[in-house]
């Protein structure tokens, strides 16, 4: 397969996954807004989200100050902002268009109609429609994944697309946790709502029922974090993403990719054999910072080994 084709497939999936993860983050805020919380707590939550997404600076340059509405619009609808949900859906579609002969027409048409429909959503939509927009994004992502799984041949095209999906999801889940830990409310420094705030996060990640079933415990920050980092059987967990990433990297291995596979395996082993308490001994955010550093290294190595090397585009 052409390296450029693999590159487009990889980014097609990354952008779609990113759109979905952003929708989940916004959904968490949407649900948090229903909890009785003081206004400064709400703003702290949004600031933590913008910081963990690396969007704080560009957002402030544009909007001046953090308000829930402005932050939501910036992350969801801002078409000039390449990191927004609508921009990600557009990028996913542009990448698919570049390889429309490689993906099945069903996959292309699904991503194309997602983009065409997304053009109807913008910041003028009423508050009541915003939750529906987030639901819509999630369902379009489910649909695309289903169409891929149901129609694509089991070959490199699918593997590179999955590499993009799981790298992005590992990154997104860790950022979501990081944002929660950066927020004083999430750390339990604001008494009273901590449990509900983490329960909201679980719901936004579609993992609430699973949490109940596998832990049979009350919701605590540590247990939720452990679940989303360490459980290999939970599709949203970082551990699961790394298992998938490793398997798909093995499937596409070439003459120069051994070191990349080794590093991926090493990172995977942390989650496979490590203890949560030890990994996070220096604090959850410190651990996640280090983890994201290694994930970035993997992304760059994958680009060098298989795709269009970064900086040459």
């Amino acid at each position: 397969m052409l390296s450029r084709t693999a590159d487009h497939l990889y980014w097609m999936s990354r952008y779609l996954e990113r759109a979905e993860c952003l929708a989940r983050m916004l959904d968490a805020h949407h649900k948090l807004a229903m909890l009785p919380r003081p206004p400064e707590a709400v703003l702290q939550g949004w600031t933590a989200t913008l910081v963990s997404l690396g969007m704080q600076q560009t957002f402030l340059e544009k909007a001046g100050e953090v308000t829930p509405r402005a932050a939501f619009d910036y992350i969801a609808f801002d078409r000039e902002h390449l990191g927004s949900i609508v921009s990600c859906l557009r990028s996913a579609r542009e990448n698919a268009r570049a390889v429309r002969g490689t993906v099945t027409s069903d996959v292309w048409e699904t991503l194309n109609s997602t983009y065409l429909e997304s053009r109807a959503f913008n910041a003028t939509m009423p508050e009541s429609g915003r939750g529906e927009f987030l639901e819509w994004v999630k369902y379009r992502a489910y649909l695309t994944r289903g169409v891929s799984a149901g129609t694509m041949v089991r070959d490199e095209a699918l593997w590179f697309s999955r590499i993009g999906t799981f790298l992005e999801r590992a990154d997104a889940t860790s950022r979501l946790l990081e944002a929660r830990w950066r927020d004083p409310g999430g750390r339990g420094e604001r008494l009273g709502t901590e449990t509900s705030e983490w329960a909201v996060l679980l719901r936004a990640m579609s993992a609430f029922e699973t949490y109940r079933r596998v832990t049979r415990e009350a919701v605590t920050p540590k247990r939720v974090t452990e679940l989303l980092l360490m459980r290999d059987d939970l599709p949203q967990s970082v551990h699961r993403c790394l298992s998938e990433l490793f398997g798909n990297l093995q499937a596409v291995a070439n003459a120069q990719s051994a070191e990349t596979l080794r590093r991926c395996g090493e990172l995977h082993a942390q989650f496979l054999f490590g203890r949560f308490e030890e990994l996070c001994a220096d604090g959850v955010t410190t651990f996640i910072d280090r983890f994201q550093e290694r994930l970035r290294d993997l992304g760059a190595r994958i680009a060098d080994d298989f795709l269009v090397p970064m900086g040459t585009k």
Partner: protein
Amino acid sequence: MLKTQTSAGAYDEMLEADGTPRPHCRRYWNWLEEQPDERLAHKRAEADALFHRVGITFAVYGENAGTERLIPFDIVPRIIPVEEWRVLEAGLKQRVRALNAFIRDVYHEQEILKAGKIPVEQVLTNAQYRPEMQAIDLPAGIYAHIAGIDVVRDGKGQFCVLEDNLRVPSGVSYMLENRKMMARLFPELFAQHPVEPVEQYPDILLENLKSVAPEGVTDPTVVLMTPGAYNSAYFEHAFLAQQMGIELVEGQDLFVRDDVVYMRTTKGPERVDVIYRRIDDDFVDPLAFRPDSALGVPGLLTAYRAGRVTIANAVGTGVADDKSIYPYVPDMVRFYLGEEPLLANVPTWVLRRPDDLAHVLANLPELVVKEVHGAGGYGMLIGPASTRQQIEDFRKRIIANPERYIAQPTLALSTSPTFVAAGLAPRHIDLRPFVLSGKEITVVPGGLTRVALREGSLVVNSSQGGGTKDTWVLGS
């Protein structure tokens, strides 16, 4: 069902002058008359929605970059009876055989120039003439592997050639998609009508491309080279690559080492033998042609001249489809084949000739004047449809550089009933059949019918409001 009228002075493809259907269209016309208006309107909307979802779109240059538009699709087919088609087909094959012979000759012995049939300077100083191709032998001596010959019917119903497209002719994907769309919208029509199939086009093309691989290559790797996803014809590039099961490459995907062309794959370099390029000569190789272009592959021309890779169409075919060369094509048929042309040209005045120039300047309001290097319907004057001011402006441009222009009478292009907002109405059409040259010359029955959707308009180009129709070659 609204009744249509025919347009004065033009030949209608479906209806006689009295409004009754021509014999070969009778069955279709009866069917059409039975269809309730709502059904047809519904089918039109369905076609639009499908084209959008599938992304059968083209980009328009100059407008907001990145916007995509649909080419309007008309649900009324253009029907050619098979007897008429056989004549046209023979004429097309003859013409393309002569054109290929001409290009080969220009880059070798130049017999036709020595014989004085075409002015030497008109060929050798032509911007499309590529001295790099001189004395290079190509597999099977084929230059224009794919030719799109634009054919129109004049007021008397006679087919004649308006233009030859021998560089990177486009539009064949619409021919194929339009047929699929018709079959999806109106399956019953195909059960009732023996329409000759067109879907074999990609197979024939791939077979031909493989047959011209460099000598000694047994299982050639063929790729389709596109300028990229923002090119106006990108849909077609992706479509054809997919239909043929070959890689769709951009210049950045290829590199040349020791005169061999490779593509960069996830498993390392892979050799490429035949490049079906949909990119102009100027952009093929920045070392040889335009150094500022990032679309091409450095060293590709050297590999090509060394015979290590085949490029289709060949570099330098533009010398034969230039509008200044067009008037000489009938002479080429006589010169190379010793035959009389089966297909006529449209009468053409070449403005570099003083007599022709004088005649044209005296009759501008009645004529169509075209820039020799223009394409896409740009840079032309349609006298009868222009204001006095436009004509005078154009006159100045002609006088400044007469050698840049040719002129033709304003043709009453044939019409076909077409769905417009008000119902069924006659609109002018042309036809672009695709002629494929390999071991033999093949023309897939039909081609792309383009229709000028504005009332009275003669410009069928999609960039200027043209639409398309399914084209049927109908057996009896």
